[in-house]
């Protein structure tokens, strides 16, 4: 069982009291306990079972405008004491920083909404195994599939965030996820790999196992016998797996830290048009059972819905206390990033989006870390399919796609197929005028 709020509160209060006694003027602490159990299957056989039990404390002490932190999973009283003493000693000799401070009191969360983020259901390993067998049966029905690896993971966690300002709050959450990775082989022994998964707060919201298996198999088989194409300028469609990545780029580029440090290609773009005018982007923390839902951020500041982009215009940065003070902005509860970030759905159907151009490259996977947030340059390896007049013609691999986010953002057309599968979600996305490097 995951430890209850009382236990975590007691630990948090102990740490805060001790740090205060040793000379801290302000203290924040987070105590988190999580237990997760995972079962892995491979080719219809049990491969691995893994149980994880983890209790951790993180603590930051302030002496005036000086600050230092410790964290530990060694929670013996002696060790915690020694660590807090060390933290205070370190704080004393760390130089002052005028922007160091706890969040403004009036911004702290006071009401905790029940967002239904916890499901008490416990799925025994035998049941997990039954589920995974069904996943694999569905995937292995296809003769091209030569290997399947599946996993079922259940995790429960509970946390408390506390500060010497009196903030003391936290809540339980749960996560149930299952995945299937399939490998298919063609007549020449060339292999391809693809996957499907489901991840939810509540066990009964998970996808049916046979659906995961058959989707993973289908996606893998489609990738067999890929071709490399010529280098050219072409319109690209990002599958929903990939289009959500644009939101990660946006979130990093408009974080108050990137803006304050001047290391973002979107610096000074507030109230400017950065996307085409049809684009609206929301960050909504209070979605019931949402994978990114939260009542407050990493500092205890209440989180409200933000419209980050309105008709293409950037309206908000993601602000925490420290960088907020640097930029002379109030924290909007985004210490630790966004919650449920999504593009409002577009007005064109998926089918019609595929047909908008005569030739389009449909991307299902990218590899590499080719996003430069300072310059906005983008270049990654990609695999996908060549589309002609809306019809999937053949798989494509060993190519790269490149562009610059400043241009890409302004050339986005979204389909109307938004779904909430991740904490960042985007509809299928068409971007005009990117460069593909191939042969």
């Amino acid at each position: 069982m995951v430890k209850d709020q009382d236990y975590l509160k007691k630990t948090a209060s102990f740490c805060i009291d001790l740090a205060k006694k040793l000379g801290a003027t302000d203290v924040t602490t987070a105590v988190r306990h999580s237990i997760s159990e995972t079962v892995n299957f491979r080719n219809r056989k049990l491969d691995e079972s893994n149980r994880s039990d983890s209790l951790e404390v993180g603590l930051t002490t302030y002496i005036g405008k000086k600050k230092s932190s410790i964290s530990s999973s060694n929670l013996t009283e002696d060790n915690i004491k020694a660590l807090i003493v060390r933290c205070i000693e370190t704080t004393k000799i760390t130089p002052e920083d005028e922007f160091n401070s706890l969040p403004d009191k009036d911004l702290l969360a006071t009401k905790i909404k029940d967002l239904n983020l916890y499901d008490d259901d416990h799925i025994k390993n035998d049941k997990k195994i039954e589920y995974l067998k069904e996943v694999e049966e569905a995937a292995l029905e296809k003769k091209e599939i030569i290997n399947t690896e599946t996993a079922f993971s259940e995790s429960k966690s509970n946390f408390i965030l506390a500060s010497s300002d009196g903030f003391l709050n936290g809540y339980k959450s749960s996560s149930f996820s299952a995945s299937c990775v399939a490998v298919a082989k063609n007549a020449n022994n060339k292999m391809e790999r693809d996957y499907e998964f489901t991840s939810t707060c509540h066990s009964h919201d998970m996808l049916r196992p046979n659906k995961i298996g058959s989707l993973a198999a289908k996606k893998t088989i489609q990738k067999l016998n890929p071709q490399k194409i010529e280098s050219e300028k072409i319109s690209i469609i990002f599958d929903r797996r990939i289009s959500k990545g644009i939101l990660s780029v946006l979130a990093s580029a408009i974080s108050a830290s990137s803006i304050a440090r001047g290391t973002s290609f979107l610096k000074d773009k507030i109230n400017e048009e950065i996307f085409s005018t049809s684009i609206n982007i929301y960050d909504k923390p209070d979605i019931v059972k949402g994978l990114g839902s939260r009542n407050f951020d990493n500092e205890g500041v209440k989180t409200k819905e933000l419209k980050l982009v309105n008709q293409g215009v950037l309206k908000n940065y993601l602000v925490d206390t420290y960088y907020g003070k640097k930029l002379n902005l109030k924290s909007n509860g985004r210490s630790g990033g966004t919650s449920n970030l999504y593009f409002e759905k577009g007005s064109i159907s998926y089918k019609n989006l595929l047909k908008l151009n005569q030739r389009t490259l449909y991307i299902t996977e990218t590899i590499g870390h080719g996003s430069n947030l300072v310059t906005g340059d983008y270049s990654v390896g990609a695999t996908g399919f060549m589309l002609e007049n809306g019809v999937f013609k053949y798989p494509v691999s060993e190519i790269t796609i490149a562009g610059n986010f400043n241009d890409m953002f302004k050339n986005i057309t979204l389909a109307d197929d938004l779904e909430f599968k991740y904490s960042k979600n985007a509809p299928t996305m068409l971007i005009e005028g990117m460069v593909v490097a191939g042969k």
Partner: protein
Amino acid sequence: MNDFFNKTDLSRIDAEKIISDTLNNCDDGELYLENSKSESIVLDDGKIKSSTYSSDLGYGLRAVTGEVVAYSHSNEISKNSLKQSADNLSSTLKSKKGIYNHEIPKTNGQFYKNINPIEEKSLQSKLELLKEVNNYTRAKSGIVQQVTASFSGEHKSIEIIRSGGEVLTDVRPLIRFNVSVMLEKNGKKETGVYGIGGRQSYDEYLKDDNWKKVCDEAFRIASVNLDSRPAPAGEMKVVLGPGWPAILIHEAIGHGLEGDFNRKKTSAFHNLMGQRVASEGVTIVDDGTLHNRRGSLTIDDEGTPTEKTVLIENGILKNFMQDRLNARLMNTRSTGSGRRESYKHVVLPRMRNTMMLNGKYSQEEMIKSVDKGIFAVSFGGGQVDITSGKFVFNCTEAYEIINGKIGAPIKGATLIGDGPSILKEVSLVGNNMMLDPGIGTCGKAGQGVPVGVAQPSILIDKMTVGGTQL
């Protein structure tokens, strides 16, 4: 030696009994105990942005029968907790018919000193040096807009207790010093990053004003990029510089030669043992025994001494990298490549220091032989799809080559290739092998472990460059 049993109700004898009972009729398994301390001190925007110290303790109990691994870990070292883990393992492994292999080779060398790098340099002197780094780097030029510098240090003690009471221990220091510089000129911004590190004290790396060289190098890379032009797009010849660009080998070849993917036949290399996978003259080893290197280990995380494993010899595939589980199932021996990020993670076969050995050509000869291509000097990260063999990596410093001469710098572009065929495209191997500066972290299945790479300059006849200029 770290005593994991002096502040708990769990005695060493209790632990040994639980281990032996749990691993009865298993093929393998152990109790892995870990005590680690780490620090991170970051200067950014002219100020100490964070100073963090962590202290972690925990265990992982593993039982293996046949192909099945049962693992349970916790940060609470107590009788109760270990028993709960043991019960969890036993409930997973219902039919056990294994024979426990007690044989574990003893190590004969130690590749780093038993020091705690965090305590060897005072916090005060670290803070002062960061300030000096900031002042020195900003004084280089008025176009310096941002400087970030950091120390990270770690001291990790591990103990492995096997069924029957065999005990293996290791103490591993690790440090890294990093500088990142952002320049701005005529509205154009570029960054340069450089770092050094390994398994010695900070001062071994920073002494004699060595830290200035790190700042200079970060500044130089950013300056080069300020003048960069858009990169070309398409297939062309690529000359890779020596040292760190060997992450190409790590991604393109290394991962595909890890035992697990080959036992499971999901690696593009699984049916190529003994066959030609690279041009003649290409020899690649994975070596865990280099003194004080980031990827070196005295023993791996299963207690096996590390070694220098020949992966590819003169173009022929010779060995995979193995942990105990995959070695047993493939009827071979562990190469001392069983690694885990921490007690929270299961053992996987992993790389250590992956190196392509010297050939006989000079870098100059290579560049002279190229009419149109690129010269790639440094890279950011890379990634590979093990199954299809496709891999990428991102240039952070590269130049065009025109008519045998190095030309203008080009913008960061992704290079993409096919693992099983790329080494057949290597036409010249240089004579200037260099180790990387000690900064690599390899990710696999969500676990990061420190690794090293090395290579001489090489000429690749055909690779796709992912630029924007058609």
